[in-house]
């Protein structure tokens, strides 16, 4: 149990034990609703996708329910429905999670189903082909979501050849190139030493014992430690991804940033919140409230195990691209040069600390946060100390962290939109590269 008094109640009664197989079990009882969540998380994610086969791990996760143990795809689908299951399949660059939230009284059946999916997937050639075709087409459909598409392409353009440049969600070409052998090789990630069993909700000792029993015999090869180089920032680049007919441009302005375990993580997180967190940030004020240029603007610090990114995300009509980029860069430059409005640091700290519990209020959200915390190297203890760490940040600390915000002169300016309408505006910020020719194989 991890239990200092300052730990948020959500994590105060988190049970943590390592089973003899090396599998880490994290469990928390909450019996207010007759629902229970069961999930298997992996400490490795899409950085393990083979080069040129982006989306392989997502495809593998999605295939588990297409046949496992004695069950076929339609049988599993019917089982999920009768358990009242919401299925969670999550793949990020550094972790993955397969989970079921089910009616609590069906716990035993759900446990047996999860064990089949994780330990005994069939991966039949027919199902692999079928699911590969479906996911490749699904990825094309996801391209319709301009915001999602822009964020994915921005990451590729930012991280370039670093494995973080691989789109965790996959690309339709990458998935199209996956073969069954690739998936069988990726199955080695499902090793007890690389995995977490997360149980949340309407639990009791009997159910916990059943889970230990079910996964107790799991034996697989031990994975070697994985070390990635730190991603290195580039200078100013301007990249355009053409989206025919778009009336708006999706804009992403960002730069490579620090890892989650960097000592300046919390001060920089607070600085980034002053810049673009919540509805009273510098960016919302300048770009949305004062100028009416966008419906939404925010800045995100995405700190991973070996490095990360800071990115401002917004969108605006084609005619206001230049004005929006200038206004956002202006706020960034102003903050970076030391302009902190009175009370802004305290407000950002309270906002971060106050909102954190809401981000892990549901079982799937808490499970995702726990798996992510393990993968990024902070563990459940690191998650539990989030709120106290935010409170401990001083204004001086934030000032010292301001130079870690991206220098507007060194930003990647990425836009997805109708090329002929927005290219002239973008050219004001530097030599324009086309997305297709700017990315290399990560």
């Amino acid at each position: 149990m991890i239990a200092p008094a300052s730990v948020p109640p959500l994590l105060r009664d988190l049970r943590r034990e390592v089973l003899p197989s090396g599998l880490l079990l994290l469990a928390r009882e909450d019996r207010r609703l007759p629902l229970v969540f069961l999930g298997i998380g992996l400490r490795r994610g899409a950085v393990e996708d083979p080069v040129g086969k982006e989306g392989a791990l997502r495809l593998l996760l999605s295939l588990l329910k297409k046949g496992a143990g004695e069950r076929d795809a339609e049988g599993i689908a019917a089982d999920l429905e009768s358990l009242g299951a919401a299925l969670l399949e999550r793949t990020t660059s550094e972790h993955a999670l397969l989970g079921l939230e089910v009616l609590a009284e069906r716990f035993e059946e759900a446990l047996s189903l999860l064990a089949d999916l994780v330990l005994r997937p069939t991966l039949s050639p027919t199902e692999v082909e079928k699911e590969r075709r479906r996911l490749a087409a699904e990825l094309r459909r996801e391209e319709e979501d301009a915001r999602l598409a822009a964020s994915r392409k921005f990451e590729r353009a930012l991280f370039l050849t670093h494995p973080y440049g691989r789109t965790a969600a996959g690309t339709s070409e990458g998935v199209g190139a996956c073969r069954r052998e690739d998936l069988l090789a990726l199955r080695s990630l499902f090793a007890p030493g690389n995995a977490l069993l997360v149980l949340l909700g309407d639990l009791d000792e009997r159910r916990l014992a059943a889970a230990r029993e079910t996964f107790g015999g799991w034996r697989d090869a031990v994975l070697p430690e994985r070390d990635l180089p730190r991603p290195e920032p580039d200078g100013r680049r301007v990249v355009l991804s053409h989206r025919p007919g778009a009336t708006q441009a999706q804009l992403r302005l960002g730069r490579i940033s620090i890892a989650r375990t960097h000592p300046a993580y919390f001060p920089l997180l607070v600085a980034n919140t002053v810049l673009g967190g919540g509805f009273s940030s510098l960016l919302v004020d300048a770009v949305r409230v004062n100028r009416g240029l966008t419906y939404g603007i925010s800045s995100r610090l995405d700190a991973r195990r070996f490095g990360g990114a800071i990115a401002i995300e917004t969108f605006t009509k084609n005619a206001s691209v230049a004005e929006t980029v200038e206004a956002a860069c202006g706020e960034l430059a102003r903050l970076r040069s030391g302009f902190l409005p009175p009370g802004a640091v305290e407000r950002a700290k309270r906002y971060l600390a106050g909102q954190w519990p809401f981000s892990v209020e549901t079982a799937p959200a808490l499970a995702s946060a726990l798996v992510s915390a393990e993968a990024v190297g902070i563990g459940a203890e690191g998650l539990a100390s989030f709120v106290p760490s935010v409170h401990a940040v001083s204004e001086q600390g934030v000032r010292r962290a301001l130079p870690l915000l991206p220098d507007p002169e060194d930003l990647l300016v990425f836009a997805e939109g109708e090329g002929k309408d927005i290219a002239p505006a973008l050219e004001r910020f530097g030599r324009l590269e086309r997305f297709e020719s700017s990315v290399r194989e990560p």
Partner: protein
Amino acid sequence: MPAPLPATAAFPLERHALGNGLLALFSPDRALPLVSLQVHFRVGSRNERPGITGLSHLLEHLMFNGAAKYGPKEFDRTLEREGGFSNASTSWDTTVYHEEFPPAALATAIDLEADRMRALAVAEASLRSEAAVVREERRVSVEDDPDGDLFERLYALAFDAHPYGWPVVGWMSDLLAIGVEDVRAYLRTFYAPNNALLVVAGDFEPEGAIALVRDAFGDIPPGPPPPPVRTEEPPQKGEKRLALSREAEVPAVAIAFHGARAGDGDDPFLLQAIGRILAGGESGRLVRRLVRREESALSIDFEAPWTVDPGLAVLLAKVRPDVDPSRVERSILEELERLGAEEVPLAEFERAKSALAATSLRGLRTVRGRGEEIGRAEVLLGDARLAFALPARFRALEPAAARALAARTFRASNRTVVTLLPSRP
């Protein structure tokens, strides 16, 4: 036979009526230090008219731009300073404001909501700036979004007379033309305490909270009863169709039928069960047939949102790029016809009921979710307590009633079809 479903964990619910007509609904739960405060106004695009479409939603934006005590930019600043977050949403029938915050911020959140209900400032400059923001919202959610565009067309085509035919976000021309006087008149008519519910869910102490609510809201004068929405949608006389050609990655087909109102007894529940049988998870009939076996569709979704007046039941199929959408449409129509002709086997019906019971339990996991379900049950079903009884309502459904409703609803003359065909320059 599957085992019977468990009873829903009962969260408490208290009801307090203020003299000015404001109804306060409290659901305390001290398990986690989280609170959600919500104000549900009984106003949405249903209450608009041509020329002011989108006004309900535009007003939702203006509610964050300053009132008497808390001026421009102060709303979010004040709340965020206490660790809170706020947002709002507008639908056909309601506008819902919500704040999520740590328990210590309850008095502030109540004060902020009372201030803007009492004395919202509506100025020309802030209206123009906010209307520009909403036009960007419209561009991202309709003009540049194939699904948003498709649904806007579908509703506009399906409804001849009822206000559900225009988009909640409003037509672009109205967003350019709505003036300060339109906003003020709307505000006077609909933003009075007698047209609102206040919901608090989570970690708070009800006696203290009702005292705060009485203090903050008690002297806001009630308004006259809002004018009723008189227009009823006349029965549809024949199939309607539209082929929409626009930028998109994949074709799609949306099929809509005029359905039930939320208050129509079991019908809205039965429609959800029918939707689950057709398109639920990976085992829905259409998912198995079109996504899995025929490999003609990428996804099948069903929705029949609960509404004050009769709304639409919609099936949306995203079609594989190399497939003719009319083939997918034919398969869907066959399955719909089968639902009206043959009773769903009991085991399949029970699975759908389990899934719906679990889904409605999931709606209660968060303080915000509980608040929203309480408000929705009160506004749409007429009784807030039903928020916690939905699993039991789903559990009680019978396949024979689902068959009868399917036969009544899925008629050709009650059908509107919009097909999206991607155009590539």
